[in-house]
């Protein structure tokens, strides 16, 4: 079956909460879904008064002409594949637990906040607070995979517990603070105060200066990394930037309760 296409009928001036899309499977028919009431501005609208919604597969959604006023796209998404063309607002894929989000455009703040599983691919830049802690939890991402082709803003990836994050562009300030575990791969530059209070986890970076807080390791057993690279490349559907590159492995300073490892990609 073809995917369902969702396209705004009006030019948005005010922010719009798109979390209703994640509930689409709860509706037995698209007719009832289209008749659902949503808020835009201070008015309630039937969904089909402000969006064109085509017929198709409820597990396969495509949002066309998205813009940065659309918040909460893919909020708590479960077992749905969502493709988005255009920029999006805050909280893209927040607390998503499974499925796939792929966007062709930029995501604003709090992208992948509290991600629990599934895959988010952003073909563009991300604002601040990528993978942020939800309001009422003290941990950020607990699992899942994030791929960002562009740059990422400040205060990202705080207290992440698990998950794989690949950033092809630059990463802003205060990233990865108090990281609990997980893997973060950054191709570009990294802002200041990186990985402050990190406990465990794995960092891949091209930035030599980051290695200075770590000790060099002589172990040269990288087979598992190849396996890891392969697996991730498959998931994100493209070659990982560290593919066929050389690494030096570093490990953290136990005294500072840092038992993370860092791979310097040359």
């Amino acid at each position, binding site marked *: 079956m073809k995917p369902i296409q969702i396209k705004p009928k009006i030019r948005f001036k005010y922010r719009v909460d798109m*979390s209703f899309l994640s*509930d689409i499977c709860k509706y037995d028919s698209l007719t009832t879904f289209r008749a659902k009431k949503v808020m835009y501005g201070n008015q309630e609208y039937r969904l089909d008064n402000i969006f064109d919604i085509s017929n198709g597969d409820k597990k396969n959604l495509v949002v066309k002409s998205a813009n940065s006023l659309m918040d909460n796209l893919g909020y708590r998404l479960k077992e749905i594949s969502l493709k988005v063309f255009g920029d999006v607002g805050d909280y893209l894929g927040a607390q998503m637990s499974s499925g796939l989000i792929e966007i062709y455009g930029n995501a604003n703040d709090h992208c992948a906040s509290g991600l629990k599983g599934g895959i988010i691919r952003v073909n563009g830049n991300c604002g601040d607070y990528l993978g942020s802690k*939800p*309001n*009422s*939890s*003290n941990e950020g991402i607990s699992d899942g995979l994030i791929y960002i082709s562009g740059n990422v803003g400040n205060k990202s990836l705080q207290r992440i517990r698990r998950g794989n994050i690949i950033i092809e562009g630059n990463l802003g300030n205060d990233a990865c603070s108090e990281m609990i575990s997980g893997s973060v791969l950054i191709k570009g530059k990294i802002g200041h105060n990186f990985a402050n209070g990190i406990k465990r986890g794995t960092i891949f970076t091209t930035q030599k200066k980051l290695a200075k807080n770590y000790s060099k390791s002589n172990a040269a057993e990288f087979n598992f990394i190849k396996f890891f690279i392969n697996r991730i490349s498959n998931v994100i559907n493209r070659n990982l930037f560290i593919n066929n590159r050389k690494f030096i492995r570093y490990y953290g300073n136990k005294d500072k309760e840092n038992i993370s490892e860092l791979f310097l990609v040359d």
Partner: protein
Amino acid sequence: MIIRLKSGIVYDPTNNIFNRTKDIFIKDGKIINKNNIHGKINQTIDCTNKIIMPGAIDLHTHIGGGKVNIARLMLEEFHDETDAKYDSSSIIAPTTIKTGLKYIEMGYTTCFEPALLPINARQAHAEMADIPFIDKGGYALLGNDDFFLNLLRKKASQSVINDYVAFILKASQSMGIKVVNPGGINAFKFNQRALDVDEKSKYYNITPRDVVTKLARAIYDLGVPHPLHVHCSNLGIPGNFLSTIETIKAAEGMPIHLTHIQFQSYGNNGDRGFSSAAVEISNHLNKVKNLTCDVGQIMFGQTVTMSGDSMSQHKNHKHAHPNKWMCMDIECDAGCGVVPFKYKDQSFVNSLQWAIGLEIFLLAEDPWKVYLTTDHPNGAPFTSYPHLIKLLMDRSFRNDILRELPKDILNHTILHTIKREYTMSEIAIMTRSAPAKILGLSQKGNLSIGSNADITIYDKNIKDIEEMFAHPIYVLKDGEIVVENGKIKKYRWGKTHTVKPEYDKSIEKSLTKFFDKYHTMKLDNYVLSDEEMENMIGSKVYVNECKYKRKQ
């Protein structure tokens, strides 16, 4: 406007009416005598095959005040009922609006907040004023405040203590007095981590027994209808049934009410050092005159525990689920602790807690002495009452659930051997007439001529008892139909119930001195007047009578 409820099956325990078909007439918010009807009947509700009971009364439910609001704030992630009819707040920490809606939809018309800190009274009443439909009231917390403990230490006379208690009732616009972990909350502020009934507090050199004895006596002397409401020492600790029994003795024959007694009926037998002492506790309950209790049944699932007992809540924080919690020391008055918790049906301890609560219900010989509560939300949200009623009325339903629980609890509980099933009449007693009686609400919990027309009408055709109790088809509050065909028909706002025993005003002199020196507030700003209640806080005050005038 006269309403006639025609040919309903009436349960009115106070008047010894059980399962009797009769008509009820209502005018101006009251139940009236058929013979006094002049003028025409404006509305008749056909109640054939419908059960009519007085509106239910919850005498222990945490619905307003600082700690409830902390829970609402803390548990934001649960406020996500996106398809909710009214608002998205979670039933374990509902908004005031949702609290009222859910209670009235279940046929509850009067509720009491049991942990009203006098210093927090303005907030607690303001919150409760924003609960629609129901009448409400609170019990003021005493027994951990520095002023009172100072009186005890200085061996103040009973009459001075009585004056202080009466002053607090007036100042905080309360319906009764509750003591939580007597002296223990205060001792925790001095870093004591436990305080047994006869253990001395380090700073004030007093015991929980002293606190209970004096306060129970004060309530009796003042003629306050509701006995001292006690949350005992050592809450939740294995083996605590002994402190519970000692607390009963500490009342020295004065009336007392033990609250959420399920949490107070733990033995420490067995490999895990945790067992049921429901039999021991029930023996006392059945024997001792002037002793009543509510159960505080737990149900499996996510909830949040909130209590004035900062000492025990600080201990419990290790079990917080999700992992966050808060404790607070409050204004030399009391304390509080909020710890989210999930009762798991695969946990030995939680399953046994569930069984102990039911044992207490089923071993109680007199339904006038034991009341149906879950200590909302500590054991479970109040919306689980219909489920609880079914557990009590349907043995096979109960046993089906019991069979799914960890087998080893059967060595420590006799629940599976209890054959008793509650009758409709007994449910009517324990949810209506008995709480009304123990609270001194003469116009509630009964369908006597002149009583408030707070009435719940259930559909007897609904065969599932849980379903029947969950969705009454009509609810009347003060004679107005607020729920019709199970749907909210009309918003209205209840009043606040209080008692105001007389006292010797000279106590206010020493209080003024104490306030000016140590408090951060003036005495006259501390006192809530009836005008403030009505105009600023937003709820009218109804003063219930005390049993008799104070002895001069």
